[in-house]
């Protein structure tokens, strides 16, 4: 039952954020923020309980990782909303949260931690990667909304999004920040992962043996890193901000999501704990 609590909160928040966005109802907006905060709190409690129960952070397996990702995304979005006083992104973010929170709600049982993962490097690797993904999720939402607003202004059809979203400039600046933060964490995560993989290379565990650039999970993660590195350099060196940056962050996050869920569940042989 407790495992359903965060999901229910996120779902409630998503519905209220939608009401807020569609009807521009301020009360619904405030309530949505409250529910989201409640969800993150319940989620924190749940993760805390699981940590105490297992004696380590619950990060083993894709489901646990999805749960931690949802928690980090909820937390970072709340931070952004409270610091910028801009609630328009909530409808998109909370939809991602509610959509992904279903997975851990359905299978709340923690997988046992194999001896291979009993390293602080593993915890650091997973947390930094997930935080990077959460930042990219925010960048994705900002990118999508940028494109929607851009199209409306360009087509001179000022309507739905024009009335609801902040300015293009704001969306672009926030997108740039989210990608920078995400890239830093992704770099640290990949580096730590690399170090850890070389450490366990001697192990006979089939996972450790599969740790190579040829494994789909690792390959796509490196592709992500290349993609976001390009987005970062392009913005600074050749002025790819605005719409181009928005498209890059959209494509980037689609890759992240693919790598996270389908690849994580079905394809990888090195990361399927």
């Amino acid at each position, binding site marked *: 039952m407790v495992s359903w609590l965060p999901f229910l909160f996120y779902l409630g928040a998503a519905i209220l954020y939608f009401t807020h966005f569609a009807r*521009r109802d301020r009360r619904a907006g405030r309530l949505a923020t409250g529910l989201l905060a409640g969800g993150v709190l319940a989620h924190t409690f749940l993760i805390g309980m699981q940590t105490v129960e297992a004696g380590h952070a619950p990060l083993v397996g894709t489901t646990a990782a999805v749960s931690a990702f949802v928690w980090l995304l909820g937390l970072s979005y709340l931070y952004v909303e409270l610091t910028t006083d801009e609630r328009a992104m909530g409808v998109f973010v909370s939809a991602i949260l509610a959509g992904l929170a279903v997975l851990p709600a359905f299978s709340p049982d923690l997988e046992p931690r194999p001896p291979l993962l009993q390293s602080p490097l593993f915890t650091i690797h997973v947390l930094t990667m997930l935080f990077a993904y959460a930042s990219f999720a925010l960048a994705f939402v900002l990118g999508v909304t940028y494109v929607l607003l851009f199209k409306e*202004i*360009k087509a*001179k059809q000022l309507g739905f999004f024009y*009335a609801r979203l902040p300015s*293009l400039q704001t969306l672009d600046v926030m997108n740039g920040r989210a990608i920078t933060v995400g890239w830093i964490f992704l770099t640290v995560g990949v580096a730590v992962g690399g170090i850890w993989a070389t450490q366990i290379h001697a192990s006979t565990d089939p996972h450790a043996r599969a740790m190579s650039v040829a494994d789909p999970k690792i390959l796509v993660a490196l592709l992500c890193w290349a993609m976001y590195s390009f987005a970062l350099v392009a913005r600074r060196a050749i002025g790819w901000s605005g719409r181009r940056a928005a498209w890059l962050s959209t494509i980037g996050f689609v890759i992240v999501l693919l790598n996270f869920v389908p690849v994580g569940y079905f394809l990888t042989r090195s990361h399927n704990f």
Partner: protein
Amino acid sequence: MRLYAVGVSHRTAPVELRECIDFARQGMDRALSALAERGLGRELVVLSTCNRTEIYAVTDAEGPESLFGRFMSEYHGLGYDVVSPHLFVHRGADAARHLFRVAAGLDSLVVGEPQILGQVKDAYATANDLKHTGALTNRLFHSAFAVGKRVRAETGLGEGAVSVSYAAVSLAKKIFGDLKGLGVLILGAGEMAKLTGVHLQAQQVKQLAIASRTLAAAETLARHLNGRAVPWASLPDALSAADIVITATGATEPVLTRARIEDVMRPRRSRPLFVIDIAVPRDVEANAGDLDQVFLYNIDDLQGIVKENMARRAGELDRADAIVAEEVERFAAWMHSREIIPTVVALRQRFEAIRQSELARLEPKLSGLPPEARARIDEITHLLVEKLLLTPTEQLKAVSDETMVVTYTDALNRLFSLADDRGKAERGGRRNHEEAPGQKVSS
């Protein structure tokens, strides 16, 4: 004792007359004390803006319509017959409805404009400072402020630009966020260019450059706008430095071709350029708007936006009216529940009088009793009266419908022949109205 709203507004009077009827010119304090001196209102608030002059009064003067009309015309040295055809008069709940509509911007020339709420607040504050307000006007105006706020928050009535220049500025804000720190280039030095320049300058843009075929004209406008004149020859440089370009020349051929804009866009990379073409015929080639990162709006586009916003505002009117109706009902309920108070007071006095007279009648029989027993009898009879009156009093205070108030008052007057006590009751009721501002009487 009734609430009235009397006045002239842009709906009832031509501007020539409204200009003459302006209490603000000679000071609101003078107008308010002149009204009070003539005994025209126990409570008074005067609202005077360029579109309306309205008196809100709580009075028991007979025929207040003509009294207020005469006052307005005499005060401004006009004939009553000049003013009277243009006067509107609202009574009771209708007066409240009128004020609520005014405060919400529903009665404004540009529907939904926000200034009027501030003006209503000022009018009330002035009257309140000069102690012309009372329980009824306090409640009335605070309800009006709440209506204004609710309409703003719950409907889209005040949203969307309804003038071309404001539409341009809000578009610019949607693209660039803050306009501070942006470069603006104005092409043309005519009246349209000047108007738009003034509007943008109010947004505190960083740099205002003006280019015109004749440099002298550009320099004149530049001095006026505190900007910088740019020779026509260095237009490309000025163009690449600008974020917003406004074209308003009288040229018959496009001044900014697509090729010209394309040239400056390349070194700008992704920095957007917002081009506002308010010239007729157009100054900018229409297909320049196809360029990536160029937002091109001409005068027709902007007028189209304004028209759409107007239509959208009109679509919100029903919702705003529903809010007004709801608040009027609430206010009217409160107001009517007050009207029954004199009857309640009379009823209570009647019962107390009966008790006293019975005690007096029994005095010979009671005189033999010890003082404690007499005190006891006094207490018991008092409690008895209180108990008997408790439910009727509560029921009466809950009556909120105007016709019910009349029915109950009539019935009680007959049943208990209260009419004789009415004079006393009125005075009792009147004391109630002199309570501290904002204090509720009925509850």
